[in-house]
Structures are given as structure tokens and as C-alpha cells.
């Protein structure tokens, strides 16, 4: 269904002389509702279904391990965890609706994990994982510690992790991730999807505004800062190798970074989950408005920066902690490339789309 105004613009366009200026389009003539529908049906829900299936496998692997602790079952558990963690990179940014209400991301991926807190919980057997104070004692990073961080020797890990208290905690963590994921996915499929699409206006609480803000926030805070900036010491003065994602799985942090980068860029380009080919998206929205910067299409500049960041990461070791130790400059270079897109997206793109940034740095206590 093409809105009437869009038809007129198309007709008017064909009536124009070929050449320089685009027709002045107001942002209302862009079909935000169609974009929301594409996002919901082709990107967000499929991404959640993918994550949900991986986190279910993770929980099943946990059961297999705890009922029969062995190196073989530990390997399977590790693989399941990695797959879940990669799948998570595709949903981390959609902290809206039920996910927002239940603090989904905070319960899933706060790192560095609090290993002392985890050990205390296990020893006491007494813990409430629903508490915000326990964000850093559960989720994928806590699983990293349990599965990969309990010892250098795999048999040692099997022995500890297979013991009753540890096994219980492991089970609680994976079942919780599975439950939270189910809750969010069910909500999307059970009514939120329709409400999300209907809320197609342009207020600060509209779906487009919220989703774009979420996309920006995840890019800034998790991709740029969490994965690269904080470990590289950008905010603290000195590097913090322990702050890398998947700290107990050397080499995995770069895979997660690349997955997050791809998810972010694919969302920008409206690529359906698991497929190629672009659909209606922020890129097409900017192109529709004819948004340019320094003589180039803003969408091209943004994609260019995504590509440049990927290219720059080629110089970074797959083990981010090792890279930080050996030559932090490469991490800083990567950070700088990521930072350039913060300007292009947060300032230029959001201004062009008339979307206000809805998050500020928290007031220091």
C-alpha cells in the first residue's frame, strides 16, 4: 500500500528535469509503518527466534552435562554457549517493550562478571537472580566463567562444575536465560508486534524513535565502549584487559565483536535476518530524504565507517586481552573508527530523521 502523497511525489519526480536536486520530502511522506513492519517481521522476531533456539540448546546442553559430567559434554556445552553468545549479538540492541520492562540485556550480558559474587552464591546456595544487584553474577559472562574460567585443565573444570552446588548454579543460569528469552519472544509474537507497528508516529515514545535510540545506545555503549573502548582504557586512562567480553575464552571476543558489528550494519541496511538483500531501513529513509554530508550520501558515509571499522579490526588479534597488553594502539585505532560512526549516526542521522536522543549519561552519584 503506497500512501497517496508518496504517489504524488513519484509522479512529480518523473515530471522533473533530470539532474541536481531531489524533491523536498518531508519525513512524513516516508512510510515509517512499513519500515516498522519490516523491522519486526524480517529482522527482530527472526533474530529473537534464532537466539531463543540457541539458548534452549544451551540449557539442554547444561542438563546433559550436569547429569553426566564429562569432557565431551563440557565441549558440547562450550559450543552451545558460543552459539548462544553469537546469536545474542543480533538481539542485544532491541531493548524495547518486554525486553526493556524486564531488564533483559542487563540480566543477559553485563560484563566483567563478578566472579567473587558468583562463588559466594554457589557456596551459600542462597541467591535471588531477579535482583538488579545480581546483574553481574549471571548471564552469558557468568557462564563464561563457569564453563571456561574454573581452571586451565578441562578435567578440573569438569570436576568442579559437575559438583552439586556448581551444577545447580549452572542450571539456574541457563534456565533463567531461556525463560527470559521465551518471555520476550512470546510477547513479540503475542501482541507487541502489532502495537509496535501501529505506534508509527514521530513522538519520542514512538517505535521508530525508541528503536533508533536503542540501536544507537547499543552501538555506543556495548559495541564501541564495552567491547573495545573500556578494555583499551579510553575512559579510564589505563587499559583493562579483564574487561573484554568473553574474558575467559581468549580469541572469542573478536568473533563477538564482528558479529555485533555485522548485526548493527545489517540493521542499518534493513537486511532480513539470515538473508541478503536490503529492505526498507534507516539507510533507505536517509536516501529518501536525500540526506548528504560533505557532498556524499550520509548512508554511504555510515556504511563506509562500518566497513572501515571492520577493516581496521583486521589488525587486531582475535584475543582482545592479548592485543591490549601487546599493542593497545591497534585497539585505539579501532575505537577511533567506531567513534566516527557515533558522530554520523547520533548527530547527523538522528538530526536528519528528527529523532531526539533519549538517553543521557547518568548523573554521578
Amino acid at each position, binding site marked *: 500500500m503506497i500512501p497517496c502523497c508518496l504517489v504524488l511525489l513519484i509522479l512529480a519526480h518523473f515530471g522533473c528535469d533530470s539532474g541536481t536536486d531531489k524533491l523536498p520530502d518531508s519525513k512524513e511522506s516516508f512510510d515509517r509503518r512499513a519500515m516498522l513492519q519490516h523491522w519486526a517481521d524480517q529482522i527482530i522476531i527472526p533474530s529473537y527466534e534464532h537466539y531463543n533456539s540457541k539458548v534452549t540448546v544451551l540449557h539442554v546442553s547444561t542438563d546433559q552435562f550436569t547429569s553426566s559430567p564429562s569432557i565431551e559434554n563440557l565441549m558440547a556445552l562450550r559450543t552451545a554457549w558460543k552459539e548462544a553468545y553469537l546469536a545474542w549479538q543480533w538481539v542485544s540492541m532491541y531493548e524495547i517493550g518486554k525486553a526493556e520492562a524486564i531488564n533483559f540485556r542487563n540480566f543477559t550480558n553485563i560484563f566483567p562478571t563478578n566472579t567473587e559474587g558468583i562463588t559466594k552464591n554457589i557456596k551459600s546456595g542462597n541467591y535471588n537472580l531477579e*535482583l538488579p*544487584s545480581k*546483574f553481574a553474577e549471571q548471564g552469558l559472562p557468568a557462564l563464561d566463567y563457569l564453563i571456561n574460567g574454573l581452571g586451565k585443565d578441562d578435567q578440573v573444570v569438569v570436576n568442579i562444575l559437575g559438583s552439586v552446588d556448581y551444577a545447580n548454579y549452572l542450571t539456574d543460569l541457563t534456565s533463567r536465560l531461556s525463560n527470559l528469552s521465551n518471555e520476550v519472544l512470546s510477547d513479540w509474537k503475542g501482541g507487541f508486534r502489532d502495537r509496535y507497528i501501529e505506534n508509527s508516529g514521530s513522538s519520542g*515514545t514512538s517505535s521508530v524513535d525508541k528503536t533508533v535510540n536503542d540501536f544507537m545506545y547499543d552501538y555506543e555503549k556495548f559495541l564501541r565502549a564495552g567491547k573495545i573502548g573500556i578494555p583499551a582504557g579510553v575512559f579510564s586512562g589505563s587499559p583493562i584487559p579483564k574487561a573484554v567480553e568473553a574474558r575467559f575464552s581468549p580469541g572469542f571476543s573478536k568473533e563477538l565483536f564482528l558479529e555485533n558489528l555485522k548485526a548493527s550494519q545489517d540493521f542499518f541496511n534493513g537486511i532480513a535476518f539470515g538473508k541478503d538483500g536490503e529492505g526498507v531501513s534507516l539507510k533507505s529513509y536517509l536516501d529518501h530524504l536525500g540526506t548528504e554530508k560533505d557532498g556524499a550520501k550520509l548512508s554511504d558515509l555510515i556504511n563506509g565507517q562500518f566497513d572501515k571499522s571492520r577493516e581496521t579490526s583486521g589488525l587486531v588479534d582475535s584475543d582482545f586481552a592479548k592485543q591490549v597488553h601487546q599493542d593497545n594502539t591497534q585497539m585505539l585505532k579501532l575505537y577511533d573508527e567506531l567513534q566516527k560512526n557515533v558522530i554520523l549516526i547520533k548527530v547527523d542521522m538522528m538530526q536528519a530523521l528528527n529523532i531526539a536522543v*533519549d538517553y543521557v549519561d547518568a548523573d554521578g552519584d
Partner: protein
Amino acid sequence: MFKQSITNSFILLSAAALSMASCDTKSKEPTTLTTVEAPETYTFTRDGKSTVSFSGQTDRIQMSEELTAAMKANGGATETSLLEMFRNQKADGSDASPFTSESLNSSSKSIKEKVAASKDYYSSNTTESAAIKKQLEDWVKAQATDVFPNWQVLAKSGVAGQIADGDKTRYVSGSGFEYNQLVGKGLIGSLMLDQIANNYLSAVVLDEGTNRTDNENGVVGEGKNYTNMEHKWDEAYGYVFGNSPNPENPLANIEADDDFLNKYLRSVDGDSDFAGIAKEVFDAFKLGRAAIVAGDYELRDQQANIIRERLSKVVGIRAVYYLQKGKEQIEAGNRTGAFHSLSEGVGFTLSLRFTRNPATNSPYLPSQEILAFVEALTKGNGFWEVSPELLGQMSGRIASQFGFTEAQVTN
């Protein structure tokens, strides 16, 4: 870094005085200046030795820091120990050592004695003074009795415990109050601003007894190097800049020196709508102090009014900022996320009671209205039920009384 304000002519005087590094008074030679020049830094001496002293104010700022930190941390503090920090004495009136800092423990000062204790506002209003002190103590106590026991509980309406604020954990009462914020922001007005605007900068206090003639004749206090009037003024200064590592030039470093007036003066200064306000306060303190040395009391009182107006505005701006922020968060569907902002908002709203409008010599809103605001914000289920409309009405009223707009504050 600091934009020059062009609203006051004293800036010209300050500029002219840049060559003077400090202001030195010889004890025996009366100096007459036709134009008072403020020194470049807050440095005043007599016979080559500093006359500036505000240790009591530094003590109380640091005590307030320890108290609010202990309330927030639940690291073993109890109702008793928290009240001892507030009072710096035991319940029976005997000496207490409740602080981690030994110098605070041996200090004879207390927070409580100077809460709602200004000469101008409270010398004949001990009833209200007692009520304000009690209000703060009730909040201090409630943290220990209501919130500490529920440290590992998920909060809901009527149940104290944890709420998530982004990836931070906040600890709130059954009504959603973060008591350390109510107390901390409440002390900004009831202790610090009240003592500055309504006590130490008051002509009643500055000119008490023989202060004027003593000042003119360089008569210093016993064993001291300063006149009474000089000292009173410095004590006002101490409540803004007293915790700075460089109190002679405190704005040279960028970071806040405390979590109270200094911090929020700088926050407001960082808003482009109010840029320059920190320097205006600093310059007025310097010039007023130089005026005291020069015996120009009219100039002194003009500077006092500038300080009153600017610092009161800081409190008004932050009250509106937090009430508006809470309103936005509630309207965006994030009620529990609003509790932190609203807790700060209540503290700053209470602090409005201690503001001083130089035009009226009273607070920027009628005191009964302010106390009614605090009640309206905190009654019933508190922040679990407070309406965004009410928050909007309050912030609109506060903003209009001060003469700024909500948009300027929230940007």
C-alpha cells in the same frame, strides 16, 4: 573554559585588579581605597599571613559526605551509627566517634547543629527548625530501619528493596525514596545554602556587635589573624569551596569538590543557558571579601546579594531538572527508573525553603508552599503513584518564580 558574564560591572574591577595576586592588610596602617579591587585568587593576608579560615565548614561538608555514603552503602551502619554521624554525638549527648576520618571524630562540629539554624530565617523560628531537623533524622533513620533489612529484596509498591536503573541498582523505601538522596540534596539547602545566604552573608551577622569598628581598626579575634567580619564571610565561602584541594583558586580544576553546592554550581555552569554562574559566585565572594578589607560595606552587601541570587538559582534549577526528568521517565513508561531523579528532586525541593531572593529577603516560593510540595510528592505510595501532571505543575511554578524556563534547564 568559563564564559565571561557581562551583567555586572564588578567584572571590570576584577579585570583591573589582575595584577594583584593577593590582598594584604597591614595591621597598623589603615588603607583607604577609592576603588575596591578584588584579588585574582581568594587570598587575603594580614602581616603576610593568611586570614582565611573555614575549617568548620569543611568538616561539615565531609561529615555530610560520610553520612550519605554510609546510608548508600549498607556496610554495617545502623540507625544509631547514622544518627551519630548526623549529630556527632551519642543519643545521651556524650561524645561519639562515628566517622572513619579521625579528624572528623575529634571535631566539635556537627551537621545537625547548623541545619535550619540561620540567624535570619530561624532565630525566632525554632519550631520549624526542629521540624526540619526531625525530617532529616527521620529519613536517616528510615534508611536503616526500612531499607537496609530489604537490601536483597525486589522493591514494589509498599515494599522496600532494589530497583534497576539502567544497569545500576538503587535501594528504595516502600514509597520509592532513595533516602541518601533526600538527605544529601536536602542538606544542600538546609545546611549549606541556609548558612551562606541567611546567616554568614547576612548584615545582621556580619555587622554583629562591634564587628564593623573592629574591622576598621584591624581588631582580630583572640589568637586569630582575622576580624570577625572577615571570618563570617569566609565561612560562607567555605560552604561552597571549602572542600577544594585548592581553595584559593577552586575553579581552576574541573572536577567537583564535593557532592553538594560545589558540585551543582558546576553542573549548572555546564549548562550553556547558565554558563558563567560559577565564576560569578567566585568573583562575588572575592570582591565582597575585598570590600570588607576596604571597609566598603555597601559593596560587600551587593556581592552578598549576587551570591544569594546565584546559589538560590542553582537550587531552583536542579529542583526543576530532577522533577522534569522524573516526569519524563514516568511518561515514557519507566516509573521505577524515575525514583532516583525524584529522590533528588524532593531533596532539592526541600532546599528551596532556604533560598534567598534579594528583592524580598525571603525564599523564592512561600515556605508553606514549598513544604506542601514536599508533602504532595511524598504522601501515600510516594513515587509509585505521584502523577507526572503534578511534577509538571511544580516545576513550572518553581521555574516561573526564579525567572528561568523549564526548557533552559532540561535542554
